[in-house]
């Protein structure tokens, strides 16, 4: 899967407004709560067949950092 496709999948899970569709969007600007975290873990597992460790999410600052976890 291409990086852009993975980003779109994650953005879809996060249910963001289109003006936040950007790798540079900071997670502190969005509602990145426990439900959103489950969604990201789930999306990466579904699309990349990769189970990421939950603590790695805590180190992410931007949408781009989340996409990085998938690769």
């Amino acid at each position, binding site marked *: 899967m291409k990086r852009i496709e993975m980003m779109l999948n994650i953005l879809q899970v996060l249910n963001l407004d289109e003006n936040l569709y950007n790798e540079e969007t900071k997670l502190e600007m969005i509602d990145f709560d426990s*439900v959103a*975290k*489950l969604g990201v*873990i789930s999306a990466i*597992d*579904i699309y990349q067949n990769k*189970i*990421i460790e*939950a*603590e790695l999410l805590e180190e992410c600052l931007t949408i781009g950092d989340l996409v990085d976890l998938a690769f």
Partner: protein
Amino acid sequence: MGVIVRSMVSIVPKETIGLQEITERFGEENAIRISKTTGVNKMHIANARSTLELAYEAGVYAIQKAGITAQDIDGLLMVTQTPEYRLPSTACILQDKLGMGKSTFALDIGLGCSGFPYGFLTAKSLIESKILNRVLLICGDVTSMNAAPEDQSTYPLFADGFGAVIIEECSNVSGSMLGYAFGTDGSGWKNLVIHTGLSHHKTLESFYTSGDNERYPQVQYPDYVYMDGSQIFTFCLREVPPMVEKALENAKLSKDEIDVYCFHQANGFLINHIRNKIGIPKEKVPMCMDRYGNTSSSSAILAACDYFRDKPEAKKCKIAFVAFGVGYSWSTVIMDMDSSVIGEIQEV
């Protein structure tokens, strides 16, 4: 020699809380979001009623459903993490309350969500080794008492329910159990834990004076259950699908040969994800947590009782009971059962 299930029942307390109470406590937007993720719309809550009282009701129901008396049972296993007292064990008090004989083998098993398959395997081993003839296995918790009313991750999820199963010997070698798998990873203990109340921290004060409040800053309510949902989710994705495959391999069955998968009702989002990952059709995975919440060790039994409620015609079914959670601990048993032994959920 093998073992068969003579009866399988569940009970829940009558009192309920629903979305209205969750909305009042956490606000409408949060309530909708929580319900959408957990899949819970209503839960049964014990309130002033205790583990002993509800376990007793479940035990009586299982004995009646089996058409026997308490004196006909020589083993009592109580799977719970909310025992009636710190001591004695709840199983000992239940032996007397249920009217079982003094030669009863009575034992508490301190497991949560994964407890039913573990209890079943323990009962099976005791029967097959000819130590016991017939076991009453009761699984259940008053988990609602462990959830801090202010905690959005646990209060709208954890509910109360009890399952009871009577297991006895049969002449058939394979009996009703076709396969199993289990596992433990205690390194995950801190992601689903109550810090206080027993040996480690007898009091809340001890938690703070020991410095554990600084070691575990994420724990806001140390005398209630703390759950890191993301960590639990990752653990389940990692361990549950391979466990199911291992149990199927042990049973020499393909996943399509199983009629029903009764999953621990942990969280709707999680169960759906795991179901998709394993490749099980939706109709084979009953969900009842919309009405009963997460009831810990009884939830897979509740799922079976709920599923067969509107299927009164008796038939042989291959049922996989898949359980996982606190510990971390996980377990599966695959059974060949006559559905007529499964009773509907009673409100008591």
